[in-house]
């Protein structure tokens, strides 16, 4: 097995909770990310899903070393970057870049698009052939922006265009990995599709790997090769996309899948809905044993005592549960052919019939994601 591009082992990111008042003693820890293990191969997309506040964005930021992890290891392209200083990190920044959630706050309103996309070259002291300006305009064209808008300011663009600017900026240094922190959740649905398509095209062209953080299960299904499900700072289940959507084993994943809206009302009526009781527990004081035990419909005594390990149940399918559910609960509703699901993503790195599926893909087999012309 080749070494993965990104390897994350038992990554922990805790934030101290300080008391109010003069002395500000540390009174607790927010366990935003509490020991996650995952890997991403080059050219692959790993979707990271979970509800709000489960620590998925924090995980992305710790991997990017925008935060200093409390524990664990982040190995990027063979280099352990977990404890590198800000200065030591600089050369490794080229390997991984990030796309942000809010296209309105991710671009400095006082800079022109040209200087925003060109900034990575200046910061990393890279001199592209033909000059920064030419390179930036090529990048703009590549992400579907008009290169003539080089001197415009971000406020003159729509949300989708701004996100394209963010993508161009992330591409500038030719990274191998891009951490996408909910890149489409702030956009209109039609624009989401365009941006997702763009990301997929770019993945194909540049052999990019994505860590795709999102809460929208349809979007994640569209773009990911493999998916990890997070809950309260822990990874509950990791599997290839098709396995996760058709045969999930973790009760939490079942609950998530049952929440995906089904466009066909007849099918929707037949589907089993699992309603989780209660709220997400506080990450300051997470439940003992399995963190999901307070809301789990299959929880037993053991779950309240013992933390389940993330165990490989079948090759490539890891579940952190004492009592994984192997039979279908009727939650996933994978009954008929669904082009978005049965086809491999067009750029699966080791898919034997990538070319064939590509053709289907190009022909517009995606029902909701019309490719822009």
């Amino acid at each position, binding site marked *: 097995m080749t070494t993965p591009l990104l390897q994350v082992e038992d990554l922990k990111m805790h934030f101290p909770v300080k008391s109010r008042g003069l002395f500000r003693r540390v009174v607790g820890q927010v366990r935003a990310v509490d020991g996650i293990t995952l890997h991403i191969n080059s050219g692959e997309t790993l979707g990271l899903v979970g509800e709000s506040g489960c620590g998925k964005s924090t995980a992305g930021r710790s991997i990017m070393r925008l935060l200093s992890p409390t524990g664990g290891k982040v190995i990027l392209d063979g280099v352990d970057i977990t404890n590198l200083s800000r200065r030591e990190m600089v050369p490794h920044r080229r390997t991984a870049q*990030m796309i942000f959630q809010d296209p309105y706050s*991710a671009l400095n*309103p006082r800079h*022109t698009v040209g200087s925003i996309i060109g*900034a990575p070259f200046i910061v*990393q002291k890279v001199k592209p052939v033909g000059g920064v300006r*030419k390179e930036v305009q090529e990048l703009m064209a590549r992400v579907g922006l008009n290169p003539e808008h080089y*001197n415009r300011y971000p406020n003159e663009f729509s949300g989708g265009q701004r996100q394209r600017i963010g993508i161009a900026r992330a591409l500038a240094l030719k990274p191998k990995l891009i951490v996408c922190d909910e890149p489409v959740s702030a956009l209109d649905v039609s624009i989401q599709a365009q941006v997702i398509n763009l990301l997929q095209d770019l993945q194909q062209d540049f052999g990019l790997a994505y860590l795709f953080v999102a809460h929208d299960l349809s979007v994640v299904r569209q773009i990911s090769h493999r998916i990890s499900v997070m809950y309260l700072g822990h990874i509950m289940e990791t599997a290839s996309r098709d396995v996760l959507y058709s045969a999930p084993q973790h009760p939490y994943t079942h609950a998530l899948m049952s929440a995906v809206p089904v466009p066909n009302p007849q099918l929707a009526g037949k589907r089993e809905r699992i309603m989780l009781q209660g709220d997400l527990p506080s990450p300051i004081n997470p439940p003992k044993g399995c963190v999901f035990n307070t809301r789990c419909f299959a929880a037993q005594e053991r779950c309240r005592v013992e933390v389940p390990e993330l165990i490989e149940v079948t090759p490539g399918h890891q579940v952190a549960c004492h009592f994984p559910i192997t039979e279908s609960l009727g939650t996933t509703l994978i009954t008929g052919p669904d082009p978005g699901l049965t086809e491999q993503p067009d750029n699966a790195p080791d898919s034997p019939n990538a070319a064939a599926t590509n053709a289907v893909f190009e022909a517009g087999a995606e029902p909701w994601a019309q490719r822009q012309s």
Partner: protein
Amino acid sequence: MAVDLAVPSKPGATPEVAGRSLRQLAWARFRRDKAAMTSLGVLIFIFLVAIFAPLICSWFGVDPYTFNSSVISDDGGKPIGAWGGISWQHPFGVEWGTGRDIFARLLYGLRISLAISIIATTITVVLGTFFGIVSGFAGGKTDAVLGRFMDLILAFPFLLIVLALSGALTQRITSLGVPEGNASRLVYLILIFSLFGWPYLARIIRGQVLSLREREFVESATAMGASGRRILFKEILPNLWAPILVYASLTLPTYIGAEAALSFLGVGILPPEPSFGAILADSVNYFKLVPSYLFIPGGILAILVVTFNLVGDGVRDALDPRAARS
């Protein structure tokens, strides 16, 4: 409409675009702002008048120090003629009791008032911006210490301190090699204005920095490997110009007023040197008899304040890329 205008991705098909820098854009926008342009004109005029005050005075054949007994009455020194002795020789009239020309005194007073307020504002803005950025960016203990220090300064009763320290500090300044008299008092005023002025701006800047540094474009800069210095100067500082300019344009006239108030109280510029404060202080005594003596300097002060504010507003709007573009 949030529609993406896609262009065919043809690398190389990048036509040359005539780009305008932010400064050119801002100037173009500023020029369209009629109020700001008028104010700028007035300000430039006032500045020129202040700079060339000696020339203008000699051209009119007046000076601020000469006593003219011929234009005041022998009993009580009442200016002869209507409106405090306004005439072709003395366009703004003459001073009660001495017959000194008010026009000349105002021009010379303008010089001193503008010098004090401009220098003090510059120092205030530099200090306030610096400490505000440090406080907001460093956070933690630095922020706490600076914050308490600012509170301390703000809690001091300004006027009392100014009056109490005036004698001792002015002497101290003189002993440091500054010429005695008005030069030392000028330095004292500038020092005291700057010292008490910067915390207000620093607090504004600190708040701005606190909100700016959480924005994702700062994270993005970190993610591409930018140094703290670059983030400070390239990402955060450009977003601070608006509050800085507005604050400066509000502070400058405040200092002119404060100088006037302090001269009024006797710790400002010493007579016979004219200053706005001294003139206003004197004019109040004769307000009922010669209203123009109070209203002319008062009016000029008001014009200064208003024009500074309008120009400041104009610059802020012009520097804002979100403003309409055409």
